[in-house]
């Protein structure tokens, strides 16, 4: 069958993008596959820290925190998480010597059960690998780029897969096991790819919401337009306390003998953590919530919870001096796109539908690994010695529709746009001017 130029061009794109993106897809699939089981793995790893023997009555949040501060007098408390069940420990997050620790407290006896340096949390490191390859912002951009190019891979792949001429069940919707190896690898790649295309697009788009460039842009835009998350959940600042800073009690005086300055004779004092916990419970916040301490004298207490099901999410800001609820955002208060994103995120993480969700996610991860490996094997088996084995490049200018699509896609995902421009410049300035490279990349 004679292949049309458009088909060749698309195959060429799929080929090069695939080779470049393959390592990242493998990393994302493996780390993602592990991360899906975060709750199970952490339950196993930290069982001794999580579980306590049930006794008659829990002591107050303040007592838990005081127990921690007695042991670590130089620490700053940043978060508190009351245990959600009778046999679950309370957690106090502290900052000590520039490092963040979680201290597990027996809520009945105020005994410190264990401490964990947060940078040693295995699953958090897996997550860091998944989200930014442990390379910070640079890694975040690379992952975002790989994710966007995955969208190109899926669409070009579907185009190549789409049966031409007579439609056959085997080789399109079902793999052919009884033919030769080459056909088997082809079917492993294309048939799996077809079946998982929707799931892959879903994972890429929901995953992109975390990305620092595209994700932040989308979050800001939808929040500003009133169609996404309310401010302060993903983007935007929390409200500030209504109490004027000058009315707040200021404690530390430099010298012990100095009399109390007159301006400090009366001042509001911060609310006790016990009261914040009481308010959170009264307002029916999902019990795995944590309380984030105010970060400045103007700041607020934030009660925040992101449970397995998006519908249970809550973010509440409480004035640290008056106890007034300044904002109370539940899933129901998210605008339509915010709800959709929240649901997408919990499904992405394998949380929304429990075990079925985790297994579904795992199947997609294994599928992605299958697609990547079979794709590489197919290329390796076919690859001639003298060049990369991509189809011969027709001029990109031959298809106007393709250019329009590329421009639109490049604008919608600016990092892709930038990378396409770089590829174009490399091609134009270097590859086309060096004969060896021209041969390798099969350009005429």
């Amino acid at each position: 069958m004679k292949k049309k130029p458009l088909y060749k061009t698309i195959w060429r794109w799929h080929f090069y993008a695939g080779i470049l993106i393959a390592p990242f897809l493998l990393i994302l699939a493996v780390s993602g596959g592990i991360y899906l089981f975060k709750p199970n793995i952490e339950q196993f790893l930290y069982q001794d820290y999580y579980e306590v023997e049930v006794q008659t009555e829990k002591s107050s949040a303040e007592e838990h925190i005081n127990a921690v501060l007695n042991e670590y007098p130089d620490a700053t408390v940043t978060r508190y998480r009351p245990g959600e069940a009778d046999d679950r420990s309370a957690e106090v997050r502290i900052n000590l010597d520039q490092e963040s620790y979680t201290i597990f407290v027996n809520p009945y006896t105020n005994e410190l059960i264990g401490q964990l340096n947060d940078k040693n949390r295995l699953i958090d490191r897996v997550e860091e690998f998944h989200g930014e390859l442990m390379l910070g912002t640079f890694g975040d951009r690379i992952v975002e780029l790989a994710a966007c190019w995955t969208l190109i891979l899926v669409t070009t792949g579907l185009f190549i897969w789409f049966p031409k001429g007579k439609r056959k069940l085997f080789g399109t919707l079902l793999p052919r096991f009884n033919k030769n190896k080459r056909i088997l690898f082809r079917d492993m790649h294309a048939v799996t790819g077809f079946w998982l295309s929707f799931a892959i697009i879903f994972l890429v788009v929901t995953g992109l919401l975390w990305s620092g460039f595209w994700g932040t842009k989308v979050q800001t835009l939808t929040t500003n337009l009133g169609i996404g998350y309310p401010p302060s959940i993903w983007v935007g600042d929390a409200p500030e306390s209504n109490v004027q800073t000058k009315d707040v009690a200021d404690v530390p005086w430099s010298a012990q003998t100095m009399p109390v300055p007159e301006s400090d004779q009366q001042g509001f004092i911060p609310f006790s953590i016990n009261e914040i916990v009481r308010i959170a419970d009264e307002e029916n916040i999902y019990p795995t919530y944590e309380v984030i301490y105010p970060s400045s004298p103007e700041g607020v207490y934030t009660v925040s919870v992101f449970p397995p099901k998006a519908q249970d999410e809550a973010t509440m800001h409480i004035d640290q001096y008056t106890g007034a609820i300044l904002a109370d955002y539940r899933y129901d208060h998210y605008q339509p796109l915010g709800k959709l994103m929240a649901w997408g995120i919990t499904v992405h993480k394998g949380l929304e539908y429990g075990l079925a969700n985790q297994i579904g996610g795992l199947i997609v991860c294994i599928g992605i690994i299958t697609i990547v490996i079979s794709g590489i094997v197919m290329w390796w088996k076919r690859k001639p010695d003298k060049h990369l084995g991509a189809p011969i490049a027709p001029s990109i200018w031959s298809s106007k529709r393709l250019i329009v699509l590329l421009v639109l896609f490049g604008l919608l995902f600016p990092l892709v746009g930038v990378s396409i421009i770089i590829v174009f410049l490399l091609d134009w300035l270097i590859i086309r001017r060096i004969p060896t490279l021209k041969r390798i990349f099969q350009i005429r």
Partner: protein
Amino acid sequence: MKNILLMIILLILLVACSPNQVNEEAINQYKTERPVEISLDLPNELKTNEDTMIEIHVSRSDVKEITASLRKHGETNNSINLDVTKKKNTYYLAQHVFQEAGIYYLQITVDTRDSNIMPTKRLIVGNLNEEEQKILEQENDHTNHDEHDHSDHH
């Protein structure tokens, strides 16, 4: 066709070049609260054996209940309730004669239909002895000063 395409491109560019900043008005498109605000007016210097006026101003007129209670530092279970009288629409008054010097905590609770607050003000009455001075210094609490991030959503 070309015009539509141009429009789309311009629109995307416009969005792409807009700063990543949440507008201050954006918050009004979501659920908002109407928290009660309060301010307390007391004499600048509080003395013992003097009738002290505590003026309470609240920001809303639909107050269902307002209370004031006072306790001395260290006497956790020994607080007294002060009588609060309504003077005007949003203006209330309480009175008290402090018998001894020391550190006091005055807690006001204000309940409305949809917002409850209970701020506590620390009052310093008369001259403090050395022990009380120390208490104030030690209260330098261990909370705060950490950046408030959202990293745990991920």
